[in-house]
């Protein structure tokens, strides 16, 4: 009985995910597309839970609910401000023979992908055993954190670099359209005053809990970013004194610590990011703390768009 109901939940969630994605990509109205996409992210978090991936669910929840929606809606507002008829974009899709042949090709591809997924062997051990066998030497007991920061630390190193690169790209494009905002008002003011400290607290909690349970630097960084986004939406601006050097230090802390550690481990242990088991726990905590600050700061800066002080507002 229980497996049956659980199966029904799985079927309903999978259908909902596909339906929401379809709706988001097919809707004529751009705003509707964005709202459907936000809802899609929300349901994806439930799917991760059902697939037994609570770490991923946390990341999806924090990024999807805290950053993506605000990012898309702010971009939508700027887009409409820059070109008022930008919403009328249903015209100009591919037409005629091109459209039909594209559809046939996509259907063929979908069938091929479905076949490929279907015929995969249903019992494949993966790397779970290796992770479990070495977890004692990783310094943490949550296997996902162990993979992210110890066994495959180079992935995470590259990942924080990609974040920094994305921000450099964003800053080098320069300021975009000026943005209009409605007045914040007392309700929003008190809401952000209440939420921002709580968000920072929860970010710290997720960072700490990540050592032995779902959580970690990415989730904590995303929650931290949400705190910043919330404050920015309530009319707060980074004080000028913090906008220059302190902001850059926060942005660079994670990548710099990570790079330093990579160099040291290559010199001492002979292999990139091979953490000595005795020190691994403490080193991971240091990387994670700095990475959390940098990920949070980078995502906030990405939401802001132009470098603080350079954004031209009305």
């Amino acid at each position: 009985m229980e497996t049956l109901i659980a199966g029904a939940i799985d079927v309903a969630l999978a259908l909902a995910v596909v339906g929401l994605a379809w709706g988001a990509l097919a809707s004529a109205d751009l705003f509707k597309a964005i709202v459907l996409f936000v809802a899609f992210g929300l349901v994806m978090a439930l799917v991760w839970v059902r697939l037994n991936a609570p770490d991923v669910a946390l990341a999806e929840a924090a990024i999807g609910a805290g950053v993506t929606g605000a990012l898309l809606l702010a971009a939508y507002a700027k887009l409409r401000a820059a070109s008022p008829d930008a919403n009328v974009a249903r015209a100009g899709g591919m037409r005629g023979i091109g459209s039909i042949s594209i559809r046939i090709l996509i259907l063929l591809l979908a069938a091929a992908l479905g076949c490929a997924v279907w015929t995969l062997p249903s019992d494949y051990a993966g790397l779970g055993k290796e992770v479990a066998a070495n977890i004692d030497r990783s310094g943490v007991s949550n296997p996902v954190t162990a993979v992210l920061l110890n066994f495959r630390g180079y992935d995470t190193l590259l990942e924080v670099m990609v974040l920094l690169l994305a921000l450099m790209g964003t800053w080098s494009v320069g300021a975009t359209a000026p943005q209009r905002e409605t007045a914040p008002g007392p309700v929003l003011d008190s809401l952000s005053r209440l939420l921002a400290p709580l968000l920072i607290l929860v970010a710290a909690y997720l960072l700490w809990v990540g050592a032995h349970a779902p959580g970690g630097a990415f989730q904590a960084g995303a929650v931290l970013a949400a705190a910043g986004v919330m404050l920015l939406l309530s009319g707060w601006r980074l004080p000028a004194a913090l906008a220059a050097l302190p902001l850059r230090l926060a942005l660079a802390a994670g990548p710099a610590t990570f790079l330093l550690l990579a160099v040291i481990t290559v010199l001492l242990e002979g292999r990139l990011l091979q953490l000595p088991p005795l020190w691994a726990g403490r080193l991971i905590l240091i990387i994670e703390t700095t990475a959390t600050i940098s990920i949070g700061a980078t995502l906030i800066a990405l939401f802001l768009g132009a470098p603080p002080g350079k954004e031209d507002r009305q």
Partner: protein
Amino acid sequence: MSAAFFYALAGAGLFSIGLHALLAHRHLLRKILAINVMGSGVFLVLAAMATRNGIAIPDPVPHAMIITGIVVAVAATALALVLMLKLTAETGQAVLPGRKKEDNP
């Protein structure tokens, strides 16, 4: 068939829907959403494949990759949105300049 395979099929479906939207729409914001949907499809297949080891705890390596992927995707989305806004400010519309005859919408 286990639930995981059903999710994997849904992932393949998401990828296909996203690819179609990426090719069929000219508006850049829709293309950005489409790429995100494609990415989610890939993540879904990865996570579904991670449950194949037959024990309660799935393979953590794909999970770590998905988390990295989610964060990279949001950063890339932010960059893409800024580029789109810049293009709109320059040309007045959020579409890539056409190669030939196609009239402006």
